[in-house]
């Protein structure tokens, strides 16, 4: 595969659609600002401008496809693109960590995939990852195989003859999400809010465009009924948004399956748009179990992988959900098949009793403070802010009961809650730094908090456990210290 290759022509269409999506708001704005619906006679200048922009987007989508080539050469994936400024991006195969595939609605009919090249991006801001908008499925697989072979050749030069068995990769299914779980997850998701704000923006735009002045009088006459109608509409929008969000989530997570293949985790999901994610096992830095306030009482949680994978695209949390929605009791069993070295069946110790007030204060002092002026200025209604402060105190109170820690020979487990209950499970050799923090007041009563950092994506992830005994935190730091004999 040394000759430069083009992407499938359909990527010109995809580029166009993508450009269109970015340009649609400004275009709509142009039309609306120039009178649009209300002025009666539509002026031709905005139309002309819009047409010009559309043509430009179409052309640039096409040209971008025309000028984009990729090839494998001298151990590098070489991509060249750009019209006036020829840009070349050469990615050494060694740095390629995995290829992620996804199939959108444009890809499906032609047996195409979009390929995201994930690199081990330790170099922070340097954008070294690449995207192949649309190539044939066989080509993508070929590409993946070539990368795989190249790496094997390089690392195990002695075993050249045995490559027959290694190219024949075995995919072992380790987890599959049930439809019931997907639906339950969709129902309890917070995605409704996002759709809602989208609908809200849409309506505010439409409302602007309506000839309000002319119907103002009637509105005043009908104001009583109007309030009802508005409330009703609001509820209706809410329900519809919620419904859309549920359908979207189901579509996104349908057929969610986790495979173990060689030394990689492969996650496939999606119904209209299929996605395939590959996470090399040795890039896993730790695990995080999340339980939010709605799902926790139902006994469900999610498991997220903290991976050192490079790209900024991957910082999208949802993509690294290994088990998006699972009965808490089943986690340990499933995870044992996937990452056996992580021990999830452990008892956590709790912070000492005397730190309970601190947990409550930490969550709620700001609200109590704010509720004083609020209550005075907006006298009767403002008192409601006390309720909010009380709720925050309650959150702090359960935060105390949810906190916990455990240390075994090679593993550290920390659990804390601010809003979501998060349990971090980490291996000693993956922790980048550990620290103890204490205020001077806490120092006096011998309490301290622990904070450890992991590598996650291009940045870091931080796990906490607040207000433990000073000696406990001291023990944790001793445990983390590379050679304990030196200092003890």
């Amino acid at each position, binding site marked *: 595969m040394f000759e430069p290759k083009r992407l499938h022509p359909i990527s010109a269409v995809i580029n166009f659609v993508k450009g269109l999506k970015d340009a649609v708001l400004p275009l709509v704005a142009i039309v609306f600002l120039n009178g649009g619906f209300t002025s009666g006679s539509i002026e031709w200048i905005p139309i002309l401008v819009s047409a010009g922009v559309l043509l430009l987007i179409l052309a640039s989508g096409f040209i971008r496809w025309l000028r984009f080539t990729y090839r494998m050469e001298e151990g590098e994936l070489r991509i060249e693109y750009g019209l006036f400024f020829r840009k070349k991006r050469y990615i050494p195969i060694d740095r390629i960590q995995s290829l992620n595939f996804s199939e959108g609605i444009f890809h499906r009919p032609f047996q195409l995939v979009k390929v995201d090249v994930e690199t081990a991006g330790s170099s922070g801001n340097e954008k070294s990852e690449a995207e192949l908008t649309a190539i044939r499925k066989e080509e993508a697989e070929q590409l993946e195989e070539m990368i795989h072979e190249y790496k094997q050749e390089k690392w195990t030069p002695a075993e050249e003859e045995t490559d027959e068995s290694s190219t024949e990769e075995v995919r072992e299914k380790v987890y599959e999400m049930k439809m019931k779980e997907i639906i339950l997850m969709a129902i309890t998701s917070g995605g409704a809010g996002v759709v809602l704000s989208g609908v809200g923006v849409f309506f505010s735009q439409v409302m602007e465009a309506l000839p309000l002045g002319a119907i103002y009088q009637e509105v005043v006459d009908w104001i009583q009924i109007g309030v009802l109608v508005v409330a009703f509409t609001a509820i209706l929008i809410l329900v519809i948004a919620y419904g859309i969000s549920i359908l979207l989530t189901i579509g996104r997570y349908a057929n969610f399956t986790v495979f173990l293949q060689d030394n990689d985790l492969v996650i496939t999901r999606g119904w209209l748009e299929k996605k395939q994610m590959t996470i090399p096992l040795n890039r896993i830095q730790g695990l995080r179990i999340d339980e939010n306030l709605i799902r926790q009482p139902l006994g469900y949680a999610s498991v997220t992988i903290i991976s050192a994978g490079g790209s900024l695209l991957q910082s999208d949390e949802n993509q690294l959900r290994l088990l998006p929605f699972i009965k808490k009791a089943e986690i340990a069993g499933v995870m044992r098949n996937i990452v056996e070295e992580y021990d999830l069946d452990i008892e956590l110790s709790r912070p000492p009793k005397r730190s309970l007030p601190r947990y409550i204060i930490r969550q709620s002092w700001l609200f109590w403070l704010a509720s004083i002026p609020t209550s005075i200025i907006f006298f009767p209604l403002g008192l409601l802010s006390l309720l909010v402060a009380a709720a925050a105190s309650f959150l702090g109170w359960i935060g105390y009961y949810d906190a916990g820690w455990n240390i075994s020979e090679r593993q550290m487990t920390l659990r804390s809650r601010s809003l979501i209950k998060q349990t971090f499970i980490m291996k000693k*050799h993956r922790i980048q730094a550990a620290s103890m923090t204490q*205020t001077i007041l806490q120092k006096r009563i011998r309490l301290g908090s622990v904070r450890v950092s992991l590598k996650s994506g291009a940045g870091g992830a931080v796990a906490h456990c607040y207000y433990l005994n000073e000696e406990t935190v001291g023990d944790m730091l001793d445990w983390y210290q590379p050679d304990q004999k030196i200092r003890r």
Partner: protein
Amino acid sequence: MEEPARQISRRALTLWRIYGMIQFAITFVVSAALIVAIVRWEWPIWIMWVAAAILVLELIFSVWLLPSLKWKRWRYEVTEQDVELQHGILLITKTLVPMVRVQHVDTEQGPLLRKFRLATISISTAATVHKIPALDEQEAEELRQSISALARVAEDDV
């Protein structure tokens, strides 16, 4: 865990006092402008009292109190195995960075730091950056070299 052994350069204290004074000077200029505004446009007089109070507090805290507290608290220790840091005035933070986790070390020097023959050293792991401010120039240079010599690239663990 005991306190790390070493303190940062005594000259850092003077430097931080100077930073405090620069800050004070800026507030002073703003206050002067306010007084002009009070006279010129008859702004309420209490503004002046607030400005005066801020000036006094700034003189006490940023020039006198905070630099010395900060200096007293700052400790560090570098062994073959790890780097230990301690800092913070109200919130004390003790940090432990194993040497195998260190990816690179930088020293930096602004014009004022250079004048005082000081340098700031920053120690980066894959996920975090830790800074030791205002070390003696020469000490920072030695430290940088010894850390980068000790820090090995731990393969695959990143």
